[in-house]
């Protein structure tokens, strides 16, 4: 019984399915105004830089947002929760441009006095987010996000992926006409490699991290993936590539090298730069941009 015609038929069917998925994904992307965003938090200073970057985005456009943290990182999920709570509490500004280029990178709650090139106004980051309900709901969200989650699975109800949604106001209060829901979620994946871990033992842990990363990217289907840190970012970038090839998501990968890197890229930066897994590699010093011509220098975060 000849196998070739069946194999050819199967291949054509798969390609056809791939084409259909790609068309659906592209049409969906063009028709909607918001961009699904995946933010990978790399712990410590990397999280601080990512938060500084996020202050500049129009959060109405870059949503729904999913934050990915490493299983061993307790602080980053709290920082994400604080950021989201603060962003939800700021009143809307209809005059703001598409992406607010005037925002200063201090959160509304804790602004430190400094002079930036944009002027001395001690203003909080301006958002186009609509006003949401009670402030105590924001506190609940932050408290919920502070709980450590178990390593990732794809179920929406799994502890690993929690959706945090602003609850609409109680029934006895009048509903506000434009109650757009600001929504973010949190996913936890194992680190591919701990600091100082041997290369041999890194192989199974990296595979495990990669599987978890594929789960997260498949679940969230991001249009843009923001990376800046070690460990957790390579599996996510690889997962984004895989799912782009399958036509499941657009997954544009953006890597922002740490401001601490002046003359040399980090290992993650080098991998993403040379393999072209990232569509754009941002560097924060001109010296680094001269050395890596395909990288983009567009100012510093700090």
């Amino acid at each position: 019984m000849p196998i070739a015609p069946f194999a050819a038929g199967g291949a054509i069917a798969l390609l056809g399915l791939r084409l259909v998925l790609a068309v659906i994904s592209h049409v969906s992307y063009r028709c909607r105004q918001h961009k699904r965003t995946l933010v990978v938090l790399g712990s410590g200073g990397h999280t601080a830089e990512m938060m500084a970057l996020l202050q500049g985005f129009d959060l109405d456009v870059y949503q729904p947002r999913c934050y990915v943290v490493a299983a061993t990182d307790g602080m980053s999920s709290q920082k994400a929760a604080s950021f989201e709570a603060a962003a939800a509490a700021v009143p809307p500004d209809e005059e703001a441009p598409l992406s607010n280029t005037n925002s200063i990178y201090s959160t509304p709650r804790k602004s430190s006095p400094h002079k930036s090139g944009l002027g001395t106004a001690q203003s909080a980051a301006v958002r186009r987010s609509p006003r949401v309900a009670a402030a105590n709901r924001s506190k609940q969200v932050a408290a919920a996000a502070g709980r450590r989650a178990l390593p990732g699975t794809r179920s929406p109800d799994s502890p690993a992926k929690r959706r945090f949604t602003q609850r609409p106001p109680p029934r006895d209060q009048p509903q506000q006409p434009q109650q757009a829901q600001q929504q973010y979620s949190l996913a936890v994946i194992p680190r591919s490699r701990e600091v100082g871990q041997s290369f041999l033992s890194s192989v199974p842990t990296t595979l495990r991290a990669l599987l978890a990363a594929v789960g997260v990217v498949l679940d969230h289907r991001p249009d843009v993936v923001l990376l800046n840190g070690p460990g957790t970012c390579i599996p996510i970038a690889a997962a984004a590539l895989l799912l782009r090839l399958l036509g499941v998501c657009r997954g544009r990968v953006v890597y922002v090298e740490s401001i601490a890197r002046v003359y040399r890229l980090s290992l993650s930066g080098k991998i993403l730069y040379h393999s072209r897994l990232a569509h754009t590699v941002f560097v924060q010093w001109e010296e680094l941009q001269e050395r890596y011509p395909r990288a983009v220098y567009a100012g510093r975060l700090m």
Partner: protein
Amino acid sequence: MVPPRSDRTVFVTVGTTKFDALIRVVDQQAFADTLVAAGYTRLVMQIGRADYTPRRLLPPNRRTARLHNGLAVEYFEYAPSLADHLRAAALVISHAGAGSIFEALRLRLPLVVVPNPLLMDNHQAELAAKLERDGHLLAATTDTLAQVVAGLDPSRLVAYECGNPAGIVRHIDSMVMGVCVKPM
């Protein structure tokens, strides 16, 4: 706890790292004398994960003291926020972590950075060297710290202009929105 206005505080910070060598070199009578000669009245050490606790300047099991030369000395391991300590400082001596460096520069504080020699394969020293070259801070080793502090002239430091995410965001916007229908 707000120090009186005439206080000039030196704040030593190692962030969340372990940097015993820096604490050891600060915890010395000669260094305390250097500080007093340079006009400082208080020394606060944030020692992080150090195994070495200051024991030359401070009596055993005491966290604060006033020395014979008039210098007030205290230390602690961590604080929820170092912002208050930074704001009260006239000079910051910091490890070479980017977060600590930029927090001090943002507050326009005179800053001396000491890269940890045990982390020499770490890129941190690059950042300190670059910022020193641009005149925003002074870098020192544990051996040269006393000289650098004695010779520090804050008026010769160049204020650091803080960065802004707008440039990167604009790039990402154009990459992501480029194919989209423009909003109304």
